């Protein structure tokens, strides 16, 4: 059995990744053009299954054979056929491109696939955006819980700060609101102001993170965990009491500016910046603090600075994610940002893997897909997910991809780099 999966994996790897992406794009176009027709003709009376028919597993299990047929016809066959055919040609072209151009092509293609696929159903767009927001939350939490080895649940609180602050900025600027008065800025500025508002939210969250970062100088482990827990409750409690932003009733009317494009861009930025950090010597000191803090201190590492960077980065990106979330939902209330939200991100983190960038992506994607499957179960989702996570804790305490990364394709032509051993 293992041999067969190995063979399968090797076969998948032998086809150029760009070819896979082109195949995916073709498949999305196929679905866009004839998807509905195919769906109806094979018995899917509701039309195109929104997210691979995952939610039908428990909702309408009898339709599963039809769903599988649909997946094969619309996804599997076009993707595989196109990928297989183009692999050789694409491989040659891609290897000629300089590194930067190659990366750009990949990203544009990925974006195109997501856009076309998502455009068929608003629900798909929401799922994709939630995945993006989940990735941002997970990878930034990974910095604190994975690379720095702490146990923090404060991210829901950071998310709340980012969500509210960015919403306040946007509502004050662009919406005629009871509390914040008439719109102050011209609406044409809104698309430009949005990222600025998000960043302001992120910075506010980062400042809030000092409440947690400073105690971390002297406290570790469980006790720091409790401080982060208290932080979440405090943020929730404070917001509940601030009536000018709606208190427990919630806050709304923020303009729905979280397009798939924006979420895609911010997700890429988060992944890029955090990956850059943890691969630098500067960032690796974070793991040194985890593995032996006293040794790190004596080896010139400013452990306080390392901790502050980790917590504030986590907070900043969680704040961005909160802002994106708020401007996607159009309504937020303190209940959104409690322990349950923290636990959801923890689930994504452990599902994917500690100390792994690709693991964070995998975790967020898997969690959303699992949520999709469990959606028809309603409440019982929160019976299944805890059990799932407990099993992961028992059998793979560092997550599925803990300390490992999925190897990404090499991008184009490498610049000539003299190897250190070549030097005299």
């Amino acid at each position, binding site marked *: 059995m293992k041999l067969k999966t190995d063979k399968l994996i090797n076969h998948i790897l032998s086809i150029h990744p760009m070819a896979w992406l082109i195949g995916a794009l073709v498949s999305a176009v196929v679905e866009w053009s004839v998807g509905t027709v195919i769906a109806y003709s094979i018995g899917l009376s509701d039309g195109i299954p929104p997210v691979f028919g995952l939610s039908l597993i428990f909702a309408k299990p009898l339709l599963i054979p039809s769903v599988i047929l649909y997946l094969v016809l619309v996804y599997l066959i076009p993707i595989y056929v196109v990928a297989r055919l183009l692999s050789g040609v694409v491989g040659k072209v891609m290897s000629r491109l300089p590194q930067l151009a190659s990366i750009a092509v990949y990203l544009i293609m990925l974006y195109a696939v997501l856009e076309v696929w998502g455009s068929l159903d608003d629900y798909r767009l929401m799922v994709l955006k939630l995945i993006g927001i989940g990735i941002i939350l997970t990878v930034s939490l990974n910095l604190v819980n994975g690379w720095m080895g702490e146990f923090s649940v404060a991210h829901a609180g950071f998310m709340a700060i980012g969500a509210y602050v960015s919403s306040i900025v946007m509502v004050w600027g662009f919406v005629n609101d009871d509390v914040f008065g008439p719109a102050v800025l011209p609406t044409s500025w809104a698309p430009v102001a949005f990222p600025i508002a998000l960043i302001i939210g992120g910075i506010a969250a980062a400042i809030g993170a000092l409440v947690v970062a400073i105690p971390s100088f002297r406290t570790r482990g469980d006790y720091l965990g409790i401080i982060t827990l208290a932080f979440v409750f405090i943020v929730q409690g404070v917001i509940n009491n601030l009536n000018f932003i709606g208190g427990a009733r919630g806050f709304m009317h923020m303009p729905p500016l979280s397009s798939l494009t924006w979420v895609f861009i911010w997700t890429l930025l988060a992944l890029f910046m955090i990956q850059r950090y943890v691969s*630098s*010597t*500067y960032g690796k000191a974070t793991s040194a603090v985890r593995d032996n803090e*006293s040794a790190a201190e004596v*080896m010139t590492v400013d452990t306080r600075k390392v901790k502050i960077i980790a917590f504030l980065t986590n907070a900043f990106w969680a704040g961005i994610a909160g802002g994106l979330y708020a401007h996607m939902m159009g309504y937020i209330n303190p209940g959104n940002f409690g322990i349950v939200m923290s636990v959801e991100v923890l689930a994504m983190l452990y599902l994917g893997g500690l100390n792994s960038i690709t693991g964070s992506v995998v975790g967020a994607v898997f969690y959303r897909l699992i949520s999709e499957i469990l959606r028809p179960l309603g409440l019982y989702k929160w019976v299944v997910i805890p059990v799932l996570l407990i099993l992961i804790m028992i059998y793979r305490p560092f997550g599925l991809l803990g300390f490992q990364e999925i190897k990404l394709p090499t991008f184009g032509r490498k610049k000539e780099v003299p190897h250190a051993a070549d030097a005299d």
Partner: protein
Amino acid sequence: MPLMQINHLTHFFGGLRAVHDFNTTIEMGDLKGLIGPNGAGKTTIFNLVTGVYRPTEGEVIFEGKNIVGKRPNVISDMGIARTFQNLRLWTNMTVLDNVKIAAYSRIKYGLVGAFLGGNGRYEEERMLDQEAERLLKMLDIDKFRDFKVSNLPYGIQRRVEIARALMVRPKLLLLDEPAAGMSPAEMLEIMDVIRMIQDELGLAIWLIEHRMKMVMELCQSIQVLNFGEVIAEGPPDAIRNNPVVIKAYLGTVVS
């Protein structure tokens, strides 16, 4: 001006006096020994000098500045590095990374370079790579560069720790029982390493050891500590047959 001057260093842990009125002078290029029975306070003195503890009394003057009260990372940046009695490597990382991190305070590319990349950062990382590899080569462990340290044998790990300490570019290197757990052959190798480091880098070394052969052959001068106090000091010959020293170790006077 001596490289390091310690005056009247005294430290209490609660009610327990661990170090009492310790004084020493170390010049550039010295190889000084600190010996004594277990629990005499030797590692405590290292901890006091490197800033892990703040001494109850006394001053530690390094290159003319009193470093008491400074944080350990500041002190190491000033040029004092150490190895540990019980190996404190960062086990989940490679040998190369373990060494490179010791250059943390020297890194110039800062947050911008760390989060965004850029040529400055890549250049600097390459330089760090080269410097670290040179140190690994000096210690004859360059072929283990990409190994995870937890997979390596004990003797190699000890060398990694020394390489890491040297990455700090110390003027003073504190070695805490570098030969602990080693076979006699390994110990001789380490002795060669220590001599070589001194020759090539010209730094001062302060050595805590229990292996008398090592101490007697390497050190120019030795201090003997017992119950936190210096009970004898001088060149190896003066210490070797000193009855006070022998009594401290063995408990009786050997005639």
